[in-house]
């Protein structure tokens, strides 16, 4: 047995199999299959170490049935870091050659920074070949069914931005007068290439609050899609590039607008980074990583200038509420908007089922989880649902569009930008 596996087994054995993680698991809640629960995955990890199961493709499939929503970690009475162990299980299986071919190709592309940038910047062009605009306009639907990617004819996926974020804003966005702070903004892939308008709104909100915002060169994908699938070596390359791009700039803070990027930068890199030197630089930087809402509240937001006479609700992205401990901050900023009525949904912190590529590889399951979220949102009677995660935005937009709902999904920063008249 490998040493790594032995260590994982020891950690997994802390699980007393009490069952608290069962019904709160979005995946198990739909399938009722024991192997899909955290308890089941930890038992499989232990069985792998004991040699009673093998690192098969079926194992990778079971290990991939997790949205990494961290609710099991939050509730575990024995303090088992379930999410970390599930990632470690995927890592082990990936090292045993169990990464699906599609992901291998995609990850090879993501780690080639310049090529990836070129492809994503022109994503809009390539996308139009395969997708057409959905009828009521929130995104695109497939021209042809591509079942393997979960891209059936109904699924609404966002349109690539016509222009990437870097083409919309300068490398340094300066506020009027003396800056109150100088920050780096880490937009990640989605706010760069897909929801670039939301990325711009976030920068505008910061500059309106007297903050100088830099977009350092050489920033890459945060690496989550890779390590979430077990490819830690690929993620390490990206993480190291990002730390080099962000740590040396003397910034007061690194701002993220995507829950997943934020928790990767602030926490997951601790597991991902291999080089001691880079890790050292990261140690000095990690406590300066803030979600936009958290940063604004710490800074003291300037008063809003416009009323937004709408009803809004808020969806907690898993990686914000449990990953970065951010849930009160966006609510506090949204509630303060003049004219806005805020209403909570029943279960705001339950996963929407996106989980990055999970929504493509497990589209049916992802849709079932999403259906509860859509019902919850529609039950509030809100006009707008705000969230701090682009993946959630993409997923919820899809669900609402398919349910025929008119509720709009906005990044928290986009809602704030309206109140600042930006």
């Amino acid at each position, binding site marked *: 047995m490998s040493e790594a596996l032995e260590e994982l087994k020891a950690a997994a054995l802390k699980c*007393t*199999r*009490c069952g608290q993680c069962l019904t709160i698991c979005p995946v198990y809640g739909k399938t009722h299959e*024991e192997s899909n629960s955290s308890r089941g995955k930890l038992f499989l990890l232990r*069985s792998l170490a004991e040699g009673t199961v093998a690192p098969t493709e079926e194992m990778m499939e079971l290990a991939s049935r997790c949205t990494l929503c961290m609710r099991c970690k939050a509730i575990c009475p024995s303090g088992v870091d379930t999410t970390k162990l599930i990632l470690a299980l995927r890592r082990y299986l990936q090292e045993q050659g169990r990464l699906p071919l599609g992901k291998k190709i995609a990850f090879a592309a993501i780690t080639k920074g310049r090529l990836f940038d070129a492809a994503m910047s022109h994503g809009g062009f390539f996308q139009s070949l395969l997708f057409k605009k959905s009828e009521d306009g929130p995104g695109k639907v497939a021209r042809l069914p591509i079942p393997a990617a979960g891209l059936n004819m109904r699924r609404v996926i966002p349109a690539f931005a016509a222009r990437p974020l870097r083409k919309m804003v300068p490398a340094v966005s300066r506020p009027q007068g003396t800056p109150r702070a100088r920050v780096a903004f880490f937009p990640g892939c989605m706010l760069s290439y897909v929801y670039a308008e939301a990325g711009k709104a976030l920068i505008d909100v910061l500059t309106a609050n007297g903050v100088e915002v830099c977009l350092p060169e050489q920033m890459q994908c945060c690496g989550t899609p890779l390590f979430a699938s077990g490819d830690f070596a690929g993620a390490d390359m990206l993480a190291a590039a990002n730390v080099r791009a962000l740590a040396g700039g003397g910034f007061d803070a690194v701002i993220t607008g995507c829950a997943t990027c934020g928790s990767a930068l602030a926490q997951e890199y601790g597991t991902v980074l291999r080089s001691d030197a880079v890790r050292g630089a990261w140690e000095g930087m990690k406590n300066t990583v803030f979600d936009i809402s958290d940063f604004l509240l710490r800074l003291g937001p300037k008063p809003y200038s416009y009323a937004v006479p709408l009803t809004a609700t808020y969806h907690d992205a898993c990686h914000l509420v449990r990953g970065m401990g951010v849930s009160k901050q966006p609510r506090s900023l949204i509630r303060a908007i003049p004219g806005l009525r805020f209403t909570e949904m029943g279960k705001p912190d339950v996963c929407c089922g996106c989980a990055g590529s999970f929504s493509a590889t497990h589209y049916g399951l992802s849709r079932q989880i999403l259906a509860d979220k859509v019902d919850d949102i529609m039950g509030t009677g809100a006009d707008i649902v705000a969230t701090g995660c682009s993946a959630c935005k993409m997923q919820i937009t899809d669900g609402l569009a398919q349910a025929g709902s008119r509720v709009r999904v906005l990044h928290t920063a986009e809602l704030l930008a309206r109140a600042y008249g930006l």
Partner: protein
Amino acid sequence: MLSKDEVRAAVASIVGEKNLLTGHEDLTCYTYNAGGAAPSPHIPILAVFPSTAEEVSSIVKLCNSNGISIVPRSQGSGLSVNAIPESDNSIILSMQRINSIVIDPETLTAVVGPGAITADIKKAAAKHRLMYPPDPASFTFSSIGGNVATDAGGLQCVKYGTTKSYVSGLQVVLASGEVIRAGGKCIKDVTGYNLTQLFTGSEGTLGVITEIILKLIPLPQAKRAIRVAFGEIENAAKAVSAIMTSGVVPSIMEFQEQTLIRAVEDYTHAGLPVNAGAMLLIEVDGDVSTLKPQAESIRRVCEQLGMIDFHVAETSEEAEQLWVARRSGLPALARVAKGRLGGDPAVPINKLAQAVHTLFEVGKKHGIKVSCQGHAGDGNIHPHFFFNSDEEKKTAAKARSEFHYEIIKMGGTVSAEHGVGREKSPYITTQLGEAQVAAMLAIKKALDPNNILNPGCIFGGQA
């Protein structure tokens, strides 16, 4: 004998391919339940998820005529190794997808599927201002089928009784595959033997429960939480019977001793009385006007027994704070040692002090750390035997065994609310006597002549 593939094909023809699991990895996850007991070395042939009693009936018939063991199961949250395969020639019969909940406010009943989660039943009842009182600690994730099969208890049993007090009727698939209805919605019903109560607590050994009719009661108007601390553990234990005979019936009366109080305080920093030998967490409920007098009665009783702290939660936030201490028991205990063995014995309430004293004596004798908490109001204690090594685990098991025999001597029971499962079958003959076990085995034989229903559970190898 059918081959594995033949069994799989036959079951698939009943429920459809989509409703069964046959992969080795999937099935490996059905070799354990809650708790740290060693998993079963036997991998079942399949796990099947029927949707109707008719499907269950067909599956049971198939197994009965081919000598295949059936392990009925839902959430696998049982704490006594209640539902694991005893042989490779077994199937897991998951009741999770038979999970409907229909509240019938006119008859104060709920008709539910065994796979329904108990918390969801409570929520559904509360919408009609009704209450389903049993609240095992697992109620947010355990199924009502499992609760009925083990006659699960919980905190509020002290006033409201255990699960069995609320089971009014059952639909059961017998080992023959025949479907019967025992009991119903009538409050009074003495036609024939009380099979409803026979199947309740039978741990899946006599039949497969496919529908449950539950009694509901009006939701109490209000409740209030109280925390009382005592310097001496014995006084806290004495206070329990004193309160119960004072005319007040608390809806909850939980007991925690010092090791646990300190572990919880270390974990939560909730401001618990760490110098107390033991404390009681009490809840009274009912009409708003009755709460204060109930709390006052309890205070008077506790004062006479030398309490050192008495705290009544004035707001719901304060009450929540008090209950954090109870709920944090498990995470706090996880920090005390690498592992622990638990249990669920009970004694008549006037023997509670003696039982706690005995627990510490047994711990001392074997040189291991022990602690306990419990649903003191009904004499049910949860002992903890801690260990940090495999060697110490063996000692802990020995100590627990000895404690179980002491409990029986006191007129107690080795299982109050988790069921016998496989963990406590070695004690049943001592507690029940040979004649009674033989009577039980005769019932088992009559209802399940081929011993296909959860074999090994309750009776060990005797069935």
